[in-house]
C-alpha cells in the first residue's frame, strides 16, 4: 500500500521510525493510561526487553551477518554480569577501592567502580572472551563450531557455579551458587543534584525503572547503530561473503580467521554490555540465570525476527522476551479470569514457547521481517520446494 503512494523513498523509509521511536521512547509516560490489563508490559518487563534486544542484535552479528552458529551466547551475558559483580560489590572484601561509584561510602569494603565505567569494561572483557572462544574454533566449520560455542556456553556457567572455591584453593571468585549480590546501584541518585525538578521519590521502584528503561534504550540505540554501521562496512561485506562461500571469500583476499574473530568479538561486546547492565538492574550475578535456555532463546529471537535484519531481530527479541517475561503468564491469567478456567499457564510456558517456534518456522521460516538477502534465498527455496511437489503439512 505504502509503496503506491507518491512519497519519496527516504520519506517512506522514515515513516515507520518516526512513528515507532516516540512510541518506544515515551513508553514510561503513557503506559499507565493503557489500562490495568496484565497484558500491558510493565516497566520492569520493558527493561528486560531492552536487554534482550541488545543481546539479540549482538548475536545477530555473529549468526545473521557472518553465518557462524553460536549456541553459547549466554557466556557473554554471564561475563558482563560478573564484571559488574566483581567490580561493583563487596565480593572482594580484602580490598577497598571506590572509584566514581555513586551512593557508596568512600571506605566501603570491596571494589566499587562506577557502573558507567564498568559497562565498556564488561563489553571489552566479553569481546576478549569472544576472541578466546573464536581462536580454537577458527579451523572448524559449521556445526563443529556450533558445538564448541555450546561447550563454552556450558563451561562458563559451570565455572561460575563452582567458582567459590577455585580448584580447592579456597579462593572465592564467584561466590558459587549464591552468586554475587547485591551489586552497586547504577548511580541515578547523582541526577538529583543536577536535575532539581526531579521529585524526591524518583529513585523508588517503579520510578527508578523509568531510568533503567531509558539507559536500556540508550544501549539498544548504540548497539543498533554500531550494528548497522558494521553491516554496511568493509568488514560487514566480508562477513556476508564468508557466510556465502568461505573458500571463495579467502580466494578474494578475505582473511578468514581475522574476520571470524572480529565477528565473535563484536557480537560478544554487546552481549557483555547488556549482561553488565542487566546484572545491575537485577542487583546480582546469579549462576542460575546463565542457562543454555537463554542461548537458545536468543537464537530463536534472531531467527524468528528475521536473521540478518536488525529491525526484525529487534522485533523478534522484543516479542519473545515479552512473552517469556510476562506475556505467557498474563495470557494464561486473562484466559482463566475470562473463561473461569484454571490453567496454570506458567507450567506450559516452555511447551507453548516451543510450539510458537515450530509454527513460526513452518509458516514463516524467513522470520517476521527478513533481510532482503534472506528473502531472496527463501524465495528460491520456496519455489523449488513447491516445484519438487513436497507435500505440505
Amino acid at each position: 500500500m505504502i509503496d503506491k503512494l507518491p512519497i519519496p523513498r527516504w520519506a517512506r523509509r522514515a515513516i515507520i521510525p518516526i512513528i515507532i521511536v516516540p512510541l518506544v521512547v515515551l513508553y514510561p509516560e503513557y503506559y499507565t493510561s493503557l489500562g490495568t490489563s496484565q497484558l500491558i508490559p510493565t516497566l520492569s518487563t520493558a527493561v528486560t526487553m531492552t536487554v534482550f534486544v541488545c543481546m539479540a542484535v549482538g548475536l545477530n552479528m555473529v549468526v545473521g551477518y557472518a553465518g557462524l552458529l553460536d549456541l553459547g551466547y549466554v557466556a557473554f551475558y554471564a561475563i558482563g554480569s560478573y564484571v559488574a559483580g566483581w567490580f561493583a560489590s563487596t565480593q572482594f572484601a580484602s580490598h577497598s577501592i571506590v572509584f566514581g561509584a555513586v551512593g557508596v561510602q568512600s571506605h566501603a569494603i570491596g571494589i566499587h567502580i562506577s557502573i558507567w565505567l564498568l559497562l565498556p569494561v564488561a563489553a571489552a572483557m566479553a569481546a576478549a572472551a569472544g576472541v578466546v572462544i573464536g581462536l580454537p574454533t577458527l579451523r572448524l566449520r559449521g556445526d563443529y563450531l556450533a558445538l564448541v560455542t555450546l561447550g563454552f556456553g556450558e563451561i562458563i556457567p559451570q565455572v561460575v557455579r563452582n567458582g567459590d572455591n577455585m580448584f580447592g584453593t579456597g579462593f572465592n571468585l564467584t561466590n558459587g551458587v549464591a552468586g554475587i549480590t547485591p551489586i552497586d546501584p547504577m548511580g541515578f541518585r547523582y541526577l538529583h543534584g543536577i536535575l532539581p525538578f526531579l521529585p524526591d521519590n524518583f529513585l523508588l521502584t517503579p520510578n527508578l525503572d523509568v531510568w533503567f528503561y531509558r539507559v536500556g534504550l540508550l544501549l539498544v540505540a548504540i548497539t543498533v547503530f554500531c550494528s548497522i554501521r558494521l553491516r554496511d562496512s568493509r568488514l560487514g561485506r566480508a562477513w556476508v561473503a564468508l557466510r556465502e562461500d568461505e573458500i571463495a571469500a579467502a580466494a578474494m583476499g578475505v582473511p578468514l580467521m581475522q574476520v571470524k574473530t572480529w565477528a565473535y568479538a563484536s557480537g560478544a561486546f554487546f552481549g557483555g554490555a547488556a549482561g553488565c547492565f542487566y546484572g545491575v538492574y537485577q542487583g546480582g550475578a546469579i549462576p542460575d540465570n546463565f542457562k543454555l535456555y537463554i542461548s537458545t532463546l536468543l537464537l530463536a529471537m534472531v531467527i524468528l525476527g528475521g536473521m540478518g535484519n536488525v529491525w526484525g531481530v529487534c522485533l523478534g527479541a522484543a516479542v519473545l522476551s515479552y512473552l517469556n517475561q510476562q506475556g505467557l503468564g498474563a495470557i494464561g491469567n486473562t484466559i482463566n479470569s475470562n473463561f473461569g478456567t484454571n490453567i496454570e499457564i506458567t507450567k506450559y510456558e516452555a511447551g507453548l514457547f516451543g510450539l510458537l517456534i515450530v509454527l513460526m518456522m513452518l509458516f514463516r521460516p524467513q522470520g517476521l521481517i527478513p533481510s532482503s538477502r534472506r528473502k531472496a534465498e527463501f524465495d528460491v527455496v520456496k519455489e523449488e520446494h513447491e516445484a519438487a511437489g513436497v507435500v505440505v503439512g
Partner: protein
Amino acid sequence: MATDTHTARRPVLAVLPRVTGLLNRAVTIALLALLVFWLAVNFVQGPGQFGSVLLIGFTNGALYALIALGYTLVYGIIELINFAHGDVFMWGTMITVSIAGTRLGLDGSQSGIVTFFGVLAAMVGAMVFCGILNPTIERVALRRLRNAPRLAPLITTLGISYILSNAAQFFYGPNYTGVGAILPSNILFLDWPAKSLIVILATIPLLLALTYVVRRTRQGKAMRAVAQDMDAARMMGVDVDRTISFTFALAGILAGAGGTLYVLEITTTRYDLGQIGLLAFTAAVLGGIGNLTGATLGALIIGLIQAFNEGLSWHAPGEQWTTSIVFSILILILVFRPQGLLGQPEADRA
C-alpha cells in the same frame, strides 16, 4: 613437515609451524602422560574401586552410544543437529517407567523369567513408541523445511525439544519418577553390579543389528546413497522421503532402547533428562559426526571420562565439573583433529 625445504628462504615463517608443531606434540604427550599417571595412581590406590568405575564408564558409554548414534544417523543423512533427539530418548525412559513400573509392576521381586519378559516388553514398547515419535516429528515439522537454509530446521528441533519435555512434565509431573531395582545388583560372587553388565551386553546386539541394517540391507544402501547425494539417489529410484523417515525411525528405536536401559541402570528419570542428549551429541561429534563407529567410540570415551571424573577418589575434580571437562576435551580434540576422531576430512570443495 613440508616447509623444511623453505627454511633458507624465509627462516622465521618456515620455522614457526615447526615450532608450534613440536609444541603441540609436546603438550599432547605431556597431557596424555599426566592422564595415564593419574589413572595409574588411582588404580594402585584402589584397584577394586577402579574396576567398578571402569565398568560404570563402559555402561555410561554404551547408553550414550545408543543416543549418539541417533544424532549421527540423522546428521549423516540430512546434516541436521536434531536437538529434539535427547527428548525422544527421555520419552523412551518415561514409556519404560510406564510399562515396566506402573503397568507390569516390576520391582525385582519377580522371578527371572517374568522379569526378563517384562523388561523385554518395556523395551519393545519404548522402541516402538520412539520409533514412531521420531519420524512423526520429521514428517510434521522438518520435511517442509528440507530445502530451507540450515538454521530453520535446527531451530525447529529446538522448539520440538521444548514441547516434548513440557509434555513429559504434563504427563509425568515435575519430579523424578522411576522404578525399583528391577535387575539384580550382584552376580554370584562378583562384586560388580550385574545390571551394568546387562546394559552393556544388551547394547552389543543392538549395535550389530544397526550395522547390519546400514551395511547390508536395501534400506541401508538407500540411506548411504541419500547421505552422499540426495538428488542422485532420487535418480536411481530411491524414495528419498521414505528413506529419511526410515532413518529417523532407526534413530528413534535406538533412543527407545537406550531409554529402557537407562531406567534399568539408573532407576529414575525426569522430564528434563533430554539434556543428557548434549553429552551424547558431543560424543557423536567427538567421534566424527556421521560416522557410526565414531559415535560409538566417542560415546565410550565420554562415558569413561565421566566415570573417572565422578568416581575416582585421588584428585578427581568431581561431578560438578563433568560438563566442563567433557567440553574442554572435546575442544582440545577438535583443535587437533577438526573432523573428529574417525571423521572424514572435509571434502575438497575448491
